[in-house]
């Protein structure tokens, strides 16, 4: 690949000019975030002051009778001592549990040992709207939950279409965690039922989470979601490896609950009461019908089908698999619109396979194309590989924005993986690459076949005989690092193209150090050297 530095520079300049200056508003938002944090602190000092107020009152009383005064001083001592005891337990002394609620609004309630709310923290903008001017301090946890759920119903965050709530409780005492988890779940259920304006049946998912799980905290921070939601996603993807954290992080609790239940995920850590609402989506039957009509398959011919909710780049889809005759189909159907987002079919009766991405709207007439088999032949003959020597051959139409663009042909022979792009009509090779597989040496060359500038061609055609070779490149890096080859625990040497020149990318480990080198493939010059402690 040849880098076009001038074009890149133009893009850089344009984007630098176009990027707005948001620094001031960012900094002031950060101040707000700080103030919110300060507020929770100040609410604690305020309650501290309240204890002071009690003492003052006792002092007034003291003037009335001597005996009462002694009692009052004693009481004050107890109060102080009690306060001191609580303060002595840590930096945020009174917080006994943290109760996190996730719907789409995400918030945390900090609760003391008597289950009174100390402070409430909004974790996203939706939650800020919910908490608004609500003053939850010193209310009981159940009353606070009731008020919050009421507000979510009123503001439409909870309703017929999205009825799932995640409750996550963090308390060092596991039994106490479970007790609170149950209490809050019940409070939510009753808050939803008693709200006469809606007829919503809530689905309540509840779990306990541990503050010690630093890996989970890191994930939550990285994705900007609550610890509770991160724990839920973690649990779901542990149960079903086909799901990824990435794809679920942007989904709402309701969507995650739907995906989990449609994939029959059973969890030991998450308790669920009620059913997540699927009213926002088309029915499974409608989704299947959309896929069948796109595939041109009659329902009667389907011998097997599987329909599950899934997340495709943060979009709720029905993932549909079905079989008709010897052909297996796979579809992703937008669960809201019924649009075909992705489809694939594989005919087990023959070698052919076709896959593509596109809309139902622009079904294209493919009869003028050369066909998948001819495309495969064109690629094989270009590579000089006999069909019999290929361990597998995939040939299919590649779509871009719903239009067929070229045939993509992939095959493997003698540990080399070939990838071709073949013209739809002429069978000409548009692009090809070959990659050595199966050992540490991962040589790779990609070349646009159609418009090769002479220079690219020359350097790609230059046989690797002109290069110094992997051993010499590695030795150059080792001597620069002052490391003996015998000390290496891991190594990787790759021939790669960077900035129009061929380089060896070298990575190795020795002891606790990790090294990364770029070595010029022609001269053996060290172009880049980095070393790092491996943690």
């Amino acid at each position, binding site marked *: 690949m040849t880098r076009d530095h001038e*074009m890149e*520079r133009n893009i850089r300049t344009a984007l630098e000019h176009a990027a*707005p200056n*948001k620094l001031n508003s*960012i900094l002031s938002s*950060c101040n707000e975030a700080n103030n919110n944090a300060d507020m929770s602190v100040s609410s604690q000092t305020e309650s501290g002051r309240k204890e002071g107020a009690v003492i003052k009152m006792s002092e007034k009383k003291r003037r009335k009778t001597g005996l009462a005064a002694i009692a009052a001083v004693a009481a004050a001592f107890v109060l102080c001592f009690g306060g001191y005891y609580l303060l002595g337990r840590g930096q945020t002394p009174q917080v006994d549990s943290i109760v996190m609620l996730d719907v789409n609004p995400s918030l945390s309630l900090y609760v003391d040992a008597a289950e009174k709310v100390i402070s409430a923290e909004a974790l996203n903008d939706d939650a800020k709207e919910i908490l608004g001017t609500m003053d939850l301090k010193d209310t009981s946890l159940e009353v606070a939950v009731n008020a919050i759920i009421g507000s979510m119903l009123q503001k439409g965050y909870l309703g017929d279409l999205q009825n799932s709530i995640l409750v996550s409780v963090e308390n060092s005492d596991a039994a106490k965690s479970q007790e609170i988890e149950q209490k809050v779940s019940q409070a939510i259920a009753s808050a939803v039922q008693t709200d006469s304006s809606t007829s919503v049946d809530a689905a309540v998912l509840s779990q306990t989470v541990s503050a010690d799980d630093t890996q989970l905290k890191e994930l939550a921070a990285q994705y900007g979601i609550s610890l509770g939601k991160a724990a839920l996603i973690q649990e779901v993807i542990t149960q079903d490896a086909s799901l990824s954290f990435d794809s679920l992080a942007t989904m709402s609790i309701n969507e995650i609950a739907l995906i989990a239940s449609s994939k029959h995920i059973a969890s030991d850590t998450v308790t669920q009461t009620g059913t997540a609402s699927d009213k926002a989506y088309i029915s499974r039957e409608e989704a299947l019908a959309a896929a069948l009509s796109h595939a041109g398959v009659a329902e009667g011919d389907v011998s097997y089908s599987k329909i599950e909710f899934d997340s495709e780049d943060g979009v709720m889809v029905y993932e549909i698999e079905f079989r008709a005759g010897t052909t297996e189909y796979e579809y992703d159907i937008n669960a809201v619109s019924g649009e075909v987002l992705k489809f694939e079919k594989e005919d087990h009766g023959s070698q052919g396979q076709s896959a593509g991405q596109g809309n139902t709207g622009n079904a294209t007439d493919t009869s003028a194309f050369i066909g998948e088999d001819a495309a495969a032949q064109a690629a094989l003959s270009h590579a000089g590989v006999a069909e019999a020597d290929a361990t597998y051959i995939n040939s299919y139409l590649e779509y871009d924005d719903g239009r067929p663009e070229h045939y993509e042909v992939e095959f493997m022979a003698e540990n080399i993986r070939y990838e071709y792009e073949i013209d739809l009509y002429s069978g000409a090779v548009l692009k090809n690459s070959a990659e050595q597989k199966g050992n540490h040496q991962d040589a790779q060359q*990609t070349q646009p076949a159609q418009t090769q500038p002479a220079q690219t061609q020359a350097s790609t055609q230059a046989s690797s005989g002109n290069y110094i070779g992997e051993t010499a490149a590695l030795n150059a890096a080792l001597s620069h690092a002052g490391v003996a080859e015998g000390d290496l625990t891991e190594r990787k040497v790759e021939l790669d193209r960077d900035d129009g020149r061929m380089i060896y990318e070298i990575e190795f480990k020795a002891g606790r150090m990790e090294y990364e080198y770029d070595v010029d493939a022609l001269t053996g010059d060290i172009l880049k050297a980095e*070393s790092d402690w491996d943690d």
Partner: protein
Amino acid sequence: MLALFMAVPGGSSGEKTGIMEDCIFKIAKGDKEALAELYKQTHAAVYGFALSLLKNKQDAEDVLQDVYIQVWKNAGGYRAKGKPLAWLFTITRNLALMTIRQQKRTVSVAPEDWQAMFADEPAVNHEDKMVLGALLGSLSDEERQIVVLYAMTGLKHREIADLLDLKLTTVLSKYSRAIKKLRSALKEADR
């Protein structure tokens, strides 16, 4: 973790990585100047990436702002892996996807309209508008993201592939194709 950078001809990207990581650690301790420095170093890249995902100027500006607020809140969760940019872009992508999901829409806009969209920006000159128009109007989503990441960051081929969850070969070939498309779109616009 201790990072050492040896004599590296033209290896400024490594140094920058160190500076950025340093900023994030300071931000975690509440250092606003560090946030301002990180913003200065990276905001054009973050904006460009957000714009290529969202294809909407206003949304990209909103996401740009939210990214650094997230950084401010979550810097404590960053672990030094020598990939501060990848971290920033992951946050950017998540926020952008959230925006797309909330709006349940993606728009595609003709190159002329893109130029019009930046008409009120005094800093954006005629040539910039042409480039933005070509970038946003003539490339597929993936091509645009790839080109922007190449243009705006010192990330390696493999890092870009990882970030976009694409095969290395796909990234390389799409880059080439995108550059070709940009050249012809600009030539067209020049006429």
